[in-house]
């Protein structure tokens, strides 16, 4: 059953002049994921390997990294299905590097904080299900798991450090769709910024890479349409705005 796979892992410790790669041999089983392999490396070969992980099933978003050059969640990336004899593991792009595979998520969450989208939503519940007696509003968690993959793949985030970014803009559009008591004009004003929606160049890399079906680019375009629509309305019916 066991099959040995070579892992080339990005290494960096604060104070190092430059990152390098270390090679590890890992025995894999049919179910072994990249995350399993990395935790096995830490357990049996090198306890100094740092990586972020928590839920092991694509719900927390912490184990996002680049595997063979492509951004994925390590916990749901099966090693054998990669089909390569050597697996290259690197940290996410477009985020400051803390160590090894760990990136600093503060800039990402600073943007999320600015948008302040509620964590639970009231839509996309089970079709046909009725609310239980005593339950005021049926709720479910938002799809976005805040993993940072969309920012890592985004060509704009790759060159504009001030870009609000796909995740935060998608969150802003969620506030537009379901404000849930949030200050919508303020959220729209954040998105309506030269470094907001207008910076997106429709590469749709974020939507393709998203492991949680958020479709950030689609949300950005919906947001743009709403903002353009708002401008046109103000242009042609300025009085109508006054009443709102």
């Amino acid at each position, binding site marked *: 059953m066991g099959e040995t796979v070579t892992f080339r892992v990005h290494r960096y410790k*604060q104070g190092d002049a430059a990152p390098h790669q270390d090679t590890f041999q890992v025995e894999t089983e049919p179910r072994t994921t990249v995350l399993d392999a990395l935790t096995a490396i830490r357990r049996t070969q090198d306890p100094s390997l740092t990586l972020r992980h928590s839920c092991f099933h694509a719900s927390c978003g912490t184990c996002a990294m680049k595997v063979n050059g492509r951004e994925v969640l390590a916990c749901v990336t099966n090693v054998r299905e990669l089909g390569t004899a050597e697996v290259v593991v690197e940290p996410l792009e477009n985020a400051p590097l803390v160590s090894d595979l760990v990136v*600093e998520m*503060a*800039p990402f969450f*600073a*943007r999320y*904080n*600015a948008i302040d989208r509620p964590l639970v939503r009231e839509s996309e519940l089970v079709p046909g299900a009725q609310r239980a007696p005593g339950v005021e509003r049926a709720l479910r968690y938002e799809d976005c798991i805040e993993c940072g993959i969309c920012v890592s793949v985004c060509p704009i985030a790759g*060159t*504009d*450090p*001030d870009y*609000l970014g796909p995740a*935060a803009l998608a969150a802003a559009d969620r506030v537009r769709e379901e404000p849930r008591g949030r200050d919508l004009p303020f959220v729209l004003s*954040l998105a309506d*910024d*030269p*470094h907001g929606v*207008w*910076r997106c160049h429709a590469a749709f890399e974020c939507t393709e890479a998203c492991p949680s079906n958020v479709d950030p680019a689609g949300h950005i375009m919906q947001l743009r349409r709403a903002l353009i629509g708002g401008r046109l309305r103000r242009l042609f019916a300025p009085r109508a705005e006054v009443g709102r």
Partner: protein
Amino acid sequence: MAGRADESGALSAPGERPVRWAPEERDTLPGVGWGWQAVTGALVLVLVTLHMIANHFVVKGGLRDYQEVIAYITNPVILPLETLFLVVVSWHGLLGLRAVIFDFGLSVRAERIVTRVLLGVWVVTVLYGLTLLAILVTHP
């Protein structure tokens, strides 16, 4: 028990972190936004199609000789269209170049300089084109 701080201690602490999203105020000019790039792009698309067809597809041999160029450019419909093409295509192109230059990550000050320089290049380009057109139109 005596207090003790260990010299080898290397515990990390949260350092300077961007806790708020507040992009620096950038230099903005009218006509440099995304919308203008779309509008000028659409115009260029129409004009470049006309330009290409008129100059390369309908002409015998694919290129106009001198007399044909003069005849073409003095046409009262063509002249304003080619003038507009010159103005718009250079704006669109230089605006695009500006975006690419900005992708290298410049300071606000450097961005302002680039914007001014490219604006100058655009003015020079348009003046040069207009001069050329004037020479051709007034040519016997």
